[in-house]
């Protein structure tokens, strides 16, 4: 009995230690301007698919998490300089990004991107196409015959189409669908290219431990179907795991 108690105490102490010397609190970095993935709700709180997903992942990985907002453009630099520990912001896994940071396994499969335009005959092939800077869509348009105009926020890409600055905007279908549904002046045109290798959480290269924890948590959510339920609830993607 005595041995058992001592054993339990030692286990308790060392467990506490290992928790303390890695991360006591995980800071989750997101953009907060990309509904339904992540956005700021009426209460000023970060909400959306990734909020619910992230909270569940932290629960499964037994981590204490805190949410942080950061601009999209500086979201990778601020991760590597240590302002927060993860990026969970609808970030697609690409080779270019993998040179700077690591990714967990994907929690959303790559879904087609849509062109949203203000008229049916918009020139989406060779016209002026808006996209958010540093996104897979921006990189994709740069490779096509179209002229790329980049904006720092998703919001501005839609405005550019509304005010005629761009012929169309290329973005994730999940982001564009609610906008198209509410505005009769906007419609989908042209191809629906599949870009990128799915969406994962970005983690510092030096943080393999944390990456493995989140990958395990994502896998467990894939396994019991809760991830698919979340994807369906927020209409994030047509592809299910």
């Amino acid at each position, binding site marked *: 009995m005595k041995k058992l108690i001592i054993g339990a105490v030692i286990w308790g102490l060392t467990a506490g230690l290992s928790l303390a010397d890695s991360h006591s609190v995980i800071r989750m970095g997101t953009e907060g*301007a990309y509904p339904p993935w992540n956005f700021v709700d*009426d209460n*000023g709180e970060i909400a959306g698919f990734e909020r619910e997903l992230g909270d569940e992942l932290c629960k499964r990985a037994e981590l204490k998490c805190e949410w*942080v*907002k950061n601009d999209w453009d500086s979201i990778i630099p601020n991760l*590597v300089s240590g302002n927060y520990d993860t990026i969970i912001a609808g970030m697609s896994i690409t080779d270019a990004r993998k040179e700077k940071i690591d990714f967990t396994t994907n929690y959303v499969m790559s879904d087609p991107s849509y062109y949203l335009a203000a008229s049916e005959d918009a020139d989406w092939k060779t016209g002026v196409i808006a996209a958010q800077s540093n996104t897979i869509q921006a990189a994709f348009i740069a490779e096509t015959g179209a002229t790329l105009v980049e904006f720092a926020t998703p919001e501005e890409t839609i*405005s550019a189409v509304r005010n005629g600055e761009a012929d169309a905007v290329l973005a994730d279908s999940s982001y564009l669908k*609610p906008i198209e549904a509410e505005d009769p002046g906007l419609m989908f045109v042209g191809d629906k290219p599949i870009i990128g290798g799915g969406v994962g959480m970005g983690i510092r290269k030096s943080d393999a431990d944390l990456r493995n924890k989140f990958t395990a948590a994502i896998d467990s959510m894939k396994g019991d179907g809760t991830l698919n339920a979340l994807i369906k609830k927020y209409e994030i993607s047509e592809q299910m795991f």
Partner: protein
Amino acid sequence: MFEFCANPENLSEFSWLSCYLTTPKHMNLFYSVGTVLLLLLLTAPTALLFGFGGAVMARSKILLIRLIGNGYISIVRGVPDIAFFLFFVIAIDQFLEWTRHKIFCPEWSEPIRQGNDFVVCTIAKLPLNSSPQWIHEIYGFLLAVFTFAIVFGAFAANVLYGAMRAVPKAQIETAVSFGMTDRQVFRRILVPQMWIFALPGLGNLWMILIKATPLLFLLGVEDIVYWARELGGTKTAKFTSYPHGDWRVWYFLGLLVFYLAFTRISEAIIDTLMKTLSHGTDTLGGNLQRQVGR
């Protein structure tokens, strides 16, 4: 906030607006006005202090100190604000963490720079990862105050340096002939008399400082520009009880009015201060007051 806000769909326009403008999210906009005012309140005296130090150093009789003072003034004045802000905030943050790392974790064997990553031990983090978000925000805010103070301190130093030289020679010479030491001349004659020459320049600097506060946004502090942009953006009915189109232009118009009103009030205060300080001095303003017999 109000009870009738529970059902935003069936409200008249006015009550809809009163509900809309009092959502917790809008409160963030109003708080951020406070953030901007607090920034000005803290930055102005700190920058003046830096400026005073810089001006005194630039006037020093010792070459090395003079070089440091002049170096500070010319380097900071010559670098674009945005470049300085982007560089300085990251640099000072990493410097502080690096120093803490060296002190707290001397046994740490891994390199701090691993590829792109900047990795220090957990207890060297500033602020600590386990600190609540508001501490992180205050830390970021203080970094911003410090950076603003350094930038505007250099301009203030230049203004004060010029003002010290503008104090009439006769005043200084008279003080010396009365047997005052250098230190006494500085404290009793030079500093009290320089303010009237510094005020136009400092007032101008204050206006520029007000206008520069949106740079906070660049440093990740969620200021009024951030919230105006976030709140003004199109909101679809799916994600909010208060859907609306692209209202950014109205929010930015609000910012414009806010800044205009603020600078106008500042201008009025500076004018009054100018009149008070001119009283009895041998300057254009002071002599004018004398002529009309006040």
